[in-house]
């Protein structure tokens, strides 16, 4: 997982980098010396984990967290114990008092990986598979449609066209958001515009530029972009 170290003291960062060398699961994506630097790096690098000092010149570690849209896992690192309550309030994973010992850091990393495991288990459980049914409403008409019968999702502006039987109702959602909810073993993101139901695939032909042309049962044809074609081959090959 990608981690960002935020501390105004270079030597403190260096020490933590050294200690983290023992933990192969962590890749240090960057180091920031203050909240402003950190905010920029978080937006660019999208780290999974922050090691965050609290007292820094300019904005504090807490103020940094307040300004983030999505907050990664946070492990506070500070020389003071007086912020522990507040750290608890912002649901930090752990609170390391400097000087940080290797044993204590290992404990913190345990918490991080536990949390990570729980999260991935939860998201897997929540994903929608072929056996699930979804509610679709378009204008006056409603359907409670089984995902198994939906062969194709096509994005159209801010809407998604849902193809099943002879219906094509529109739902107000982004294809990216939908993609995240669907089980990747049943549905495949063919391109920027399309998600296909793999159980509806009838035939596949090589297409231009290393892409693929997928024909679905019922006659719909969907082009798979080159990038996604490579991923498709990767996922579906023996």
């Amino acid at each position: 997982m990608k981690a960002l170290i935020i501390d105004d003291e270079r030597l403190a960062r260096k020490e933590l980098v050294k200690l983290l060398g023992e933990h192969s699961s962590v890749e240090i994506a960057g180091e920031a010396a203050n909240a402003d630097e950190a905010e920029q790096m978080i937006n660019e690098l999208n780290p999974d984990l922050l090691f965050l000092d609290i007292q820094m010149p300019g904005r504090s570690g807490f103020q940094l967290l307040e300004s983030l849209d999505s907050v990664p896992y946070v492990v506070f690192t500070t020389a003071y114990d007086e912020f522990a309550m507040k750290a608890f309030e912002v649901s930090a994973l752990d609170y390391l008092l400097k000087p940080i010992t290797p044993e204590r850091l290992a404990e913190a990393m345990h918490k991080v990986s536990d949390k990570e495991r729980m999260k991935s288990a939860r998201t897997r459980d929540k994903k929608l598979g072929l056996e699930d049914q979804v509610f679709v409403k378009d204008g006056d008409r409603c359907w409670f449609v089984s995902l198994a019968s939906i062969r194709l999702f096509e994005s159209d502006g801010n809407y998604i066209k849902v193809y099943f039987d002879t219906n094509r109702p529109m739902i107000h959602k982004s294809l990216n958001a939908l993609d995240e909810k669907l089980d990747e073993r049943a549905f495949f993101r063919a391109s920027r515009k399309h998600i296909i139901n793999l159980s509806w695939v009838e035939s596949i032909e090589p297409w231009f530029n290393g892409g693929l042309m997928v024909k679905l049962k019922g006659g719909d044809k969907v082009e798979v972009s080159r990038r996604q074609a490579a991923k498709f081959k990767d996922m579906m090959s023996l």
Partner: protein
Amino acid sequence: MRNTLVSERKGLTTFQDEIRVVKDYLGLESIRFEERLKTEFDVAAETNEFEVPSLMIQTLVENGIKHGISKLTEGGVIQLKAFVADDKLKIQIRNSGHFVINGTRKKAGGLGLENTRHRLKLIYGDESSLRILNEKDNFVLTEVIIPHLHKK
């Protein structure tokens, strides 16, 4: 540290020794802050034999670091100037930053300074003084005036 314990009993130390402690202290902070901390000393020789409450100057310098330098992204300067004027020892500590006058008096804020004032008064009475003020745009001046103790 042994140094500290011995002098604790006396309560007073020569200004020369106190300056040595301050320099040691700033040496440590320089390791911590690296290029963010610059220090300048301008200490007149005739100040050496004045007796000062031990660790008082160190405490004031530490204040300058804690409230001044450590709050500044780019860091700053600590200047210590000491000289004799009107037969009294005048110590001026300047640090980059802003002195917030009683900004928010919560937690232990201001307690250290209050203690220092008490200590001065107990030892020297009204002949001593301590003041802190903003100087120029971005400097804080801490000035301590200490009389000759032996003459009394």
